[in-house]
């Protein structure tokens, strides 16, 4: 029984949150890695693209809520999601047309493009603040739990409860659907194949008549869509605050680099590696250990390796270890 309780406590406090967080990071990292693969620069504005899309979704959600439109047990924000994606795609395509295209035609060095993306980051950050302000927003509604801790305890008779939030379930389901659709698109469709060809060898792709402008456009559309989905899911699961989204840049980049920049499968693996390490290192293991160990060995302290304030440090350390020992990532990424 103790063993089961330990297992449930582990699932409840470590596995379930880490899977949801990992799915959110993976979606963000996929966007970063696609842009890196096709446009060949690290997009520092990605966190703020997520924030922008989420801000639009929140405003639409407020509008829907005040109009009395809900989505049953699911969060209303899911109804707003397609429109938010469309708006964000529009903004990102406009940015590409006005800003990035010029440097692409010049064949500017990647470092210059990164600085350009810093400028875009400033502008988007400013727009987000203008649109929604800097305060924290909670916009999750509908059913709170798929399984609540209390129900689980009465159903199983265990001392520990397992709670699965609706937002966590939605996150995982959406992530699976989106990723499956993305891989189908990249592997099976003509446009997807031309994107992969472009990423592998730009000159050869141009030579075989692939239209580079179209490839770039599709990449931006996919990246923006992934960013908004990741942002809304993260916001539903936790809460929305523009600065937090800016800070997500670090774990997202860490996930993309750990998996191998430019490699979509790597980005997903990297997202889960980062999320699980973060949660495992910052979780207080006292409860689980008390169940597993004999009473004489039960821990006195919280058995928390690092305080949660240092969760950024976890992604950073993993990033450094990977850079030192496997600079192209766990799955072979590119190193332009």
């Amino acid at each position, binding site marked *: 029984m103790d063993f089961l309780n330990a297992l449930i406590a582990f699932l409840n406090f470590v596995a379930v949150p880490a899977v949801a967080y990992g799915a959110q990071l993976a979606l963000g990292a996929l966007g970063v890695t696609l842009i890196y693969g096709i446009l060949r*620069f*690290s997009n*520092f504005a990605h966190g703020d693209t997520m924030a922008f899309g989420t801000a639009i979704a929140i405003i639409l959600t407020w509008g829907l809520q005040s109009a009395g439109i809900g989505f049953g047990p699911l969060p209303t924000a899911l109804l707003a999601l397609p429109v938010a994606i469309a708006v964000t795609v529009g903004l990102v395509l406009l940015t590409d047309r006005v*800003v990035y295209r*010029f440097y692409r035609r010049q064949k500017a060095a*990647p*470092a*210059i493009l*990164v*600085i*350009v993306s*810093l*400028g*875009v*980051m*400033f*502008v*988007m*950050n*400013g*727009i987000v*603040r*203008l*649109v929604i*302000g*800097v305060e924290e927003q909670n916009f999750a509604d509908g059913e709170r739990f798929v399984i609540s801790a209390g129900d689980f305890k009465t159903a199983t008779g265990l001392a520990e409860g397992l709670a699965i939030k609706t937002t966590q379930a939605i996150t995982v389901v959406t992530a699976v659907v989106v990723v499956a659709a993305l891989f189908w698109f990249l592997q099976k469709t003509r446009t997807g194949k031309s994107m992969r060809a472009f990423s592998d060898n730009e000159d050869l792709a141009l030579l075989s008549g692939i239209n580079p402008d179209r490839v770039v456009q599709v990449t931006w559309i996919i990246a923006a869509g992934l960013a908004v989905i990741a942002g809304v899911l993260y916001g539903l699961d936790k809460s929305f605050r523009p*600065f937090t989204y*800016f*800070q997500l*840049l*670090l774990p997202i*980049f*860490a996930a993309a*680099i750990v998996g191998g920049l430019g490699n979509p499968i790597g980005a997903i693996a990297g997202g889960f590696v980062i999320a699980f390490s973060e949660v495992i290192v910052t979780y207080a293991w006292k409860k689980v250990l008390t169940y597993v160990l004999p009473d004489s060995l039960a821990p006195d302290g919280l058995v928390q*390796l690092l*305080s949660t*304030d*240092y969760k*950024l*440090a976890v*992604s*950073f350390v993993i*990033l*450094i270890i990977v*850079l*030192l020992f496997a*600079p192209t990532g766990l799955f072979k990424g590119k*190193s*332009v």
Partner: protein
Amino acid sequence: MTKRNLLLFAGVAALYAATGMFQSWNLSLSILNTALLATIMALGVNMQWGYAGLFNTGVMGFVALGGLAVVLVSAAPTPGGWEAGGTRLFLGLATGAATIGLAVLAWQRMAKGRLRSLAVLVILVGGFFLYRAVFDPAVAAIEANNPATYGNIGGLGLPSLVAWPVGGLLAALAACAIGKTALGLRSDYLAIATLGIAEIIVSAMRNEDWLARGVKNITSLPRPWPVPYEVDLQQQPGFLSWATGWGFDPVTASTIVVKLAYASLFGAVLLLVILLSELALKSPWGRMMRAIRDNEVAAEAMGKDVTRRHLQVFILGSAVIGIAGAMMTSMDGQLTPGTYNPLRYTFLVWVMVIVGGSGNNWGTLLGGLLIGWLWLIVESIGPAIMGGITAGMPEGAFKQHLMDSAAHMRLLTMGVILLLVLRFSPRGLIPEK
């Protein structure tokens, strides 16, 4: 200095003068002081990016380390702080350092294979628990020491000027550690690694209360040597008769004298940094740096140790940023880790370098003063403009929203300026020769 450049500098001077005349000289001078500090940081970034092409997005971290140095060196000692657990604290830190050193040694000395990985892992995990066992009680003891007013180990009580080079040293040590791991990889990786280290440094300063009281802040840090206190000035008969003799209000005059004292102090450091880096740039070392930046492969073929030179200039630039960070905390008289924000301390400095002209110290100076002015002036003018725009609108939530958002205009302004300069004048206002 060409005629055009002189005109540009005259234009920026006119902006400050106009602020002084139409708003207040106090505002103008405090903008100038902040801009001078940011310019010194920008000079550090310019060494790294302009001379060597190194992409450092961790400016905030080095600024914060400089501020930490001021607390550790020049804050008043905490009664009972050291006795509570100072020795044990250092023992803990030494354990941590020894663990990492031992792990690196094992990695280098042992033969490749499973045994080595296992040994390194055992050293790291064992060392971590040992470190926590030694370190945690010390922290608890120090933080329990009168937590309402102290709860930290306290400073050495030395003059503020001593803290400035120490700030540079702390930043240099951090730069050495990060440079040794991340330099030599591709440029984006350095950017992401430095972005991360800056966040970690600041979150450590927020949470490690024993060090500098974390978000409870440390206030009343001493002023650097020649700068007087306003209250002291107002009580000096000599100063009072001088001020009234010129027809100044003594209170305003004292604040302006204090700001002028800071401005000259910062200006002196700024000119020294420019002088030294100009001399370095014109020396064989400077030519070598530019050769490496422009063509790494060719420079390496000529026998230059590219990674080593990169590390050198990375450390130098970060030290300059650390000194500026220490100066800033000295001027503020307090360390507030909660206010360090990457947009303000990292990316704004980058805007200064790019707008001014990377690779050119005078350009960086111009960019620093111009952007520094703009950053603070948009804050005071933005609401005024928005007030003008919304004057005709009916009262209501929308008008209120627009008024509230005016304060955020400056990020947008900075972004647009950066993008415009990158597009239409990519080498900056005063390009590199």
